């Protein structure tokens, strides 16, 4: 697995879910927001691989 950083989702309970390009069951379980964040992260990661110049993506925080 590639170790991609980085966003972190925080649930109301205080639990955190890392947002990585590979995704996780936690992100899927988080529902629409988790999936959207994962896809953005994945897109950013692909873009960075393609350009080699794009900086790593920044963290996303939940809106719920």
């Amino acid at each position, binding site marked *: *697995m590639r170790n991609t950083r980085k966003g972190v989702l925080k649930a109301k309970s205080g639990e955190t879910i890392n947002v990585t390009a590979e995704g996780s*069951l936690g992100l899927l379980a988080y*529902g629409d927001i988790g999936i959207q964040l994962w896809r953005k992260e994945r897109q950013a990661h692909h873009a960075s691989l393609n350009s080699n110049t794009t900086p790593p993506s920044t963290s996303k925080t939940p809106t719920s």
Partner: protein
Amino acid sequence: MKKKMMLIGWDAADWKIINPLIEQGYMPNLEKLINGGTIGNLATMDPAYSPMLWTSIATGKHPYKHGIHGFLQPSEDRKSIKPILSTSRKVKAIWQILSEHDYKCHAVGWWPSHPAEEMNGISISNFYQKDNGLLADGWKMMSGCVHPDSEEDRFAALRVHPEELTGQHILPFIPSAEKIDQTKDTRIYSVAQVTAHAASIQAAFTNIIRTEEWDFAAAYFDSIDHYCHGFMKYHPPKQDHIAQNAFDLYNGVVTAAYRYHDMLLGRLMELAGKETTIILISDHGFQPDHLRPKYIPEEPGGAAYEHSPYGIIGMMGPGIKKDHLIYGAGLLDICPTILAHFGLSVGKDMDGKTLDDAYVKPLNTNYIDSWEAILFNKFKSHSNYEMDKDNESAMIEQLVALGYVNDISKDFTKAIKDTENFNNYNLAKSYLFGGKLDEAISVLEKLLRENPHIPRYRFHLASCYQTKGKLKESRALVNQLKEKEYYNPIALDMMEATLLMGEKKYKEALKLLKSIEDKVDKTQSHIFTKIAKCYLSTGFRDKAEEALKKEMELDYEYAPMHLMYGIIHYQKGNHDIAIEALLTSIGMEYNHAAAHRFLGLALFNKGAYQVAADSLEMSLRFNPKNNLARAKLIEIYKTHLDQPNKAALHSQNFHQNIKGEVIIVSGLPRSGTSMMMQMLDHAGIEIYTDKVREADSNNPKGYYEHNNVKSLRRNKRWVAESMDKAVKVISNFIPHLPLVYNYKIIFMERDLNEILASQRKMLQKLGAKDRHEEYPLQVMTSFKRGQDKAKQWASKQPNVEMIEVSYSDVINNPFGEALRISEFLDQRVTPEDLIKPIDANLYRQRKEVSRLNTL
């Protein structure tokens, strides 16, 4: 305050898997729901096929009412097969009733719900998440998945395709996934598919409840069922027939599936908030242990053999009891409970009840005859929906992959016929489950006529005939199956044994069961419970108990076994053990009148009158015609609880259940019962006799007996034949009379010394030795006890009138006694006719008795 409710469906979730996972801390969110709410078993229905079950949940009705009978259906033009659709449902679903009353409703993924129905909110169909297309090709969403269709793009974008998933998603299920050659073993993709489908439902549902107003929101996840059908066979402990390599690779899938679902639940609980009542349910369970079948039968819907009969229910939220256990919940109870929760009336044509026990304050339930008769006009129902052929095929392929549907024949005529047969077979089973035996028989008879080559129709029809008491018809079908070697011989032997039991030939049945004990699948057949029934019916209670203990070791969760265990201990007078066993049985299968009745009787014997009354009332809910329970309730309310009004109400219902009247002539042997029968015969009352015992010098005018009477303890069916007739029943059998008839009992009294003398004389004439001759007092005491018990019983029954008639008074004052008897029988006979056969010569033991009295 608004009563928000979220209904979450987890197909096939089972407490037997969940409980150990919670103990290990793997399901913290469900643990919160358990501790903060009410949980219980949710009894499934037969047949346990998901589209039928989830429609029953949504409508509160049996499949024979709601119209969903399988997975597929022929197209309108009968030229092709299509998946079952929401348009096939014939009755209103909960979301339609709520929408019509302006509650904001959303439903996601319910099976079947395609095309998405119009409702006062968003509905997303059960085809929404399906990956019928490659991601690279754009993965177009099929039409009809979303209502309103203006929201299609919004929700299409939220779907997750299995090709998107990475090792991060798969490794929790299959940690050694890298060892699998995916060109040969496609099971990784099936895990990805199910995981993505659940994620799609979760994404759509969370999006709706985050962004839309809602009062009622429902989501259905088929994923646990699908993970289990694929991988339960690899779940620990390892089964002997499973290869070690496959076990090592896939033994964690089911555990990971439940952990994933706990995460889904956690997010939904977070979004629902504390003001929402959450109901989590499954439609059936899934055998996780030694009860897993080794092989799945190759018949339509065979995959359901892996299911177990109890799903789960967990409820949490405002007004719901905390840390509470409910008993007796079933799938049909969900819809009425939701309606009552929102203050709407429950249709009397709904087949379930409201789950009041889950609520701190019982629901204030109102009823209407039916919602079906009321025209709803706010939201339209779909009609003439046509599904794209490619999508149809893709959906059917997925059902085939799951094992629910056999590969569709390329011969469409045959495929259509097979589909119709499968659906009609399910319709028959659903009638049977709903207690509509005649309707089930009618459907099966038609199926058999049209398909004489299909053995399972013959087998199940034989079983129905047996339940109906048509034993000859049943035996004929079993013999046909045997002759043509159509069916598994062991299954036929099991059927033969139950037939013999139906014919009261318990010894033969026992012999047969013993002969196949080592050949049969003991867990599936529950052979030990049948053996126990044979023992119990032949008076061997200890052996019956022994057999039940064997059953208990094999399958503890078999309600009929606990019921029989409870009955045995009730009969033995071990009321504490009986109560425990009966409560266990009720916990597993609530809707069983006998279990509640015996529980009530055992509690009564313990002096717990109020709870005994509650149990008996419950038994009447399931079998209102059981006058045994009603008679005991009348006694409790009158004598122990001082509630004469309730006693009067039951008394009224008791008499409504009465089928007719029987005249009983009773008393001790040689107390003049034959003489009284003669009198009634002469007076024109029809006599119930088989004339097997002929007249002799002891009873020169005949005995007027019937052999059936001797079997009264075990067989009460014959009593119907004696309606409006007179039948002779010796006093010891009186308390075994069924309570669905009125009895006018003429109890013959005779001095016990005279009786003993008469009996002695009779035995001497017959050449037999009177072994009691030396102990007349002991024999007299025993006779007296039986007589007193019979009279005591009769005096407590609301359906029994009794007159005591002295033998000597009849001889000495025939007309006076005949007048009393005539009045007792409502002048159906005249005293003149009654006295004609009285023969004072019969009173020949008088002198003998005088001699005995002086001893």
